[in-house]
């Protein structure tokens, strides 16, 4: 019984593989938050007055908000004046002419992140030739993927712009979008997540520094996967990116997001906002592999990942699908949600959340059914190991107008070891008699019998655990784009190291 356990214990102790720090010159604001800081950020980005005012309104509102304490997570109070709200790599401003001139540290960063070389050039801000044929790419993410990278607070560059432009797709940093497409930004920014939404979303509205902007015109199927890599690099900085995706009538887009951060002893704050808007017959598929630094095996350091993600299915027959694999962060606090307004709209949430050591996750979704015949599916798989705490928190709400709405929720927890916690807090509110909700949850463990069977067939304990956990997560991995599914499987394997204690 204990032998297998001890084996497992020995296995682990692998270190966070994305935990490198990039040593480059940055243009960083000293720590502290005030109206001046908000104005500085807005001015630095050359924003129009309405946006500066919007930020200031958010900041003033934020000052009146108490810190939320309802989640099943515990952490010391954050000193918001000890955080720097703006940090940009200097090399971007200098505008290197070729890869040779690019800060080699930055290039190495991308290499470690697995971003193909010619895309690295684009990301590093090398000016010309933005659209090399894909075939010449030194590496490939498994198909055509356009990448926007956000490094600390600033979007470094976006690839495949011209190719996307041919299809009419806009994919750029939100700062550029503010300059180039002010009407779109003005119309939709804050339309799904208003600046009054919650403590962190309000903070983000005041100080967001960059993020990605996507616009898919009517009837267009985006010709490639769009992808953003987020990375927090500088010390004592927060990252507050803002993503806005608009899918016009009959359009389709699949968007991937990956996150890493260096290993640091102190906690770093990441408070992003993502807004999705799907009009009639439009579909948005949003996938996340979140691998922020989780802290060390004693719970020191790691990212506080306090994120607000919400999609609005405004039009009839629209569909928004969230898929997430959460293995990183010291604390994860996020509930990617869908407001189902249009008739027959569909919302989906597929989630794997794995916590190990002293990580804490409080994650889930909200499906707000307003329209007739709206449908939603929730599949959540939580895996707790070590001393971690893993909670699913979800809300399914049928308003009286949601005739014939349907929800199906499956919520499973897997425990590895007896020092961790697995929790389920599903809120179900139904106000329509013809609507139907079905919720099921189970809790199980990786049993000694399963481990023994695998080992008797020659499979070692580490591989066996990873196989069992992958099997447990299969329903979610199926929903991920291919290249992400592979990455997700590997991530679980790494994150589980030393999982049994």
């Amino acid at each position: 019984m204990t032998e297998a356990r001890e084996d497992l214990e020995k296995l682990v102790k692998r270190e966070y593989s994305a935990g490198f720090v990039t040593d480059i010159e940055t243009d960083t604001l000293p720590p502290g938050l005030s109206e001046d800081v908000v104005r500085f950020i807005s001015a630095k980005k050359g924003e129009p007055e309405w946006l500066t005012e919007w930020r200031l309104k958010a900041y003033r509102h934020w000052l009146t908000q108490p810190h939320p304490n309802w989640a099943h997570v515990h952490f010391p109070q954050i000193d918001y004046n000890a955080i720097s709200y703006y940090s940009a790599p200097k090399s971007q401003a200098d505008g290197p002419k070729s890869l040779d001139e690019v800060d080699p540290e930055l290039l190495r960063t991308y290499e470690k992140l697995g971003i193909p070389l010619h895309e690295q050039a684009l990301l590093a801000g090398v000016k010309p030739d933005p659209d090399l044929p894909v075939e010449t790419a030194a590496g490939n993410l498994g198909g055509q993927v356009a990448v926007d990278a956000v490094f600390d607070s600033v979007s470094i560059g976006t690839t495949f712009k011209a190719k996307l432009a041919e299809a009419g797709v806009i994919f750029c940093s939100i700062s550029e979008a503010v300059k180039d497409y002010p009407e779109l930004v003005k119309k939709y920014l804050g339309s799904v997540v208003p600046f009054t939404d919650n403590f962190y979303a309000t903070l983000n509205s005041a100080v967001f520094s960059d993020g990605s902007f996507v616009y898919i015109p009517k009837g267009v199927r985006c010709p490639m996967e769009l992808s953003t890599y987020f990375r927090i690099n500088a010390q004592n900085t927060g990252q507050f990116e803002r993503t806005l995706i608009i899918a016009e009538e009959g359009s389709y887009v699949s968007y991937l997001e990956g996150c890493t951060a260096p290993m640091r002893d102190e906690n770093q704050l990441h408070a992003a906002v993502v807004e999705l808007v799907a009009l009639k017959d439009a579909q948005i598929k949003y996938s996340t592999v979140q691998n922020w630094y989780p802290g060390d095996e004693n719970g020191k350091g790691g990212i506080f990942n306090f994120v607000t993600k919400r999609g609005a299915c405004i039009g009839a027959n629209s569909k928004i699908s969230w898929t997430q694999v959460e293995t990183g962060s010291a604390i994860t606090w996020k509930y990617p949600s869908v407001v189902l307004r249009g008739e027959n709209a569909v919302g989906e949430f597929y989630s794997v959340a794995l916590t190990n050591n002293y990580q804490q996750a409080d994650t889930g979704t909200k499906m707000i059914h307003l329209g007739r015949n709206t449908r939603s599916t929730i599949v959540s798989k939580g895996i707790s190991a070590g001393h971690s705490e893993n909670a699913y928190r979800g809300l399914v709400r049928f308003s009286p107008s949601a005739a014939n709405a349907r929800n199906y929720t499956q919520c499973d927890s897997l425990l590895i070891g007896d020092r961790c916690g697995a929790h389920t807090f599903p809120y179900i509110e139904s106000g329509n008699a013809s609507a139907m909700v079905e919720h099921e949850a189970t809790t199980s463990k990786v049993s000694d019998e399963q481990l023994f069977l695998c080992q008797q067939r020659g499979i070692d304990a580490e591989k066996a655990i990873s196989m069992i956990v992958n099997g447990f997560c299969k329903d979610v991995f199926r929903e991920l784009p291919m290249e992400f599914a592979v990455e997700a499987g590997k991530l679980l394997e790494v994150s589980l190291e030393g999982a049994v204690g």
Partner: protein
Amino acid sequence: MLEVKNLHASVAGKPILNGLNLAIPAGEVHAVMGPNGSGKSTLTNVLAGKPGYEVTDGEVTFNGQNLLDLEVEDRAHAGLFLAFQYPTEIPGVSNMEFLKAAIDSQRKAQGEPAISAMDFMQQARAIAKRLDLNPEFLKRGVNEGFSGGEKKRNEILQLLMLNPKLAILDETDSGLDIDALQVVSDGVNAFRAPDHSVLLVTHYQRILNYVKPDRVHVLARGQILRSGDASLAQELEARGYGWITDAA
């Protein structure tokens, strides 16, 4: 191939095996029979190295190696296979994925490259067919929702795929109808070879009509009380275990 000398083992501090001796030469099929609670499953689990079974005395050599020193998976790599009495379910992990991982880990231990997906599938399909299993069966989760008979046939499928040196069958015949018993026995007979041995642990003589043993041993009170040829099994069937256990 397998030599067990003076084996003492206990479970949760309670002695179950009390000086068991057993030797199985290469190429032979040995049946170990005994009443309930005689220590049959303890013997198979100790040989496979299941956690929770404590060896307090004695030794076991397997092809010259000290078996008791090896980890569970190393015993498998050395060629020891246990067909479980109650095969465990692993939800979400497909049979195919599981089998391939098992084969590759064993090949890796022998310094061989991983099996190609093509070869693997061809082999698996052929063996599944022989065992009267629908190939769809390979895609299902390991033992997940399998009937009792399917679980046992799945054990034999793994036996034939992994092709070990020693197969230990723990009450593989229990819970099988006559057709399934025939299929499973055919599988075991197909495994028989000059360099393969079988340790067949069973409560009933039934399976021995299909798999002819070279030797039959009677296990009771944690010891082998009597050994003989195949006719001993028939005698047990006719007279029960009492005449041996009482005499000892």
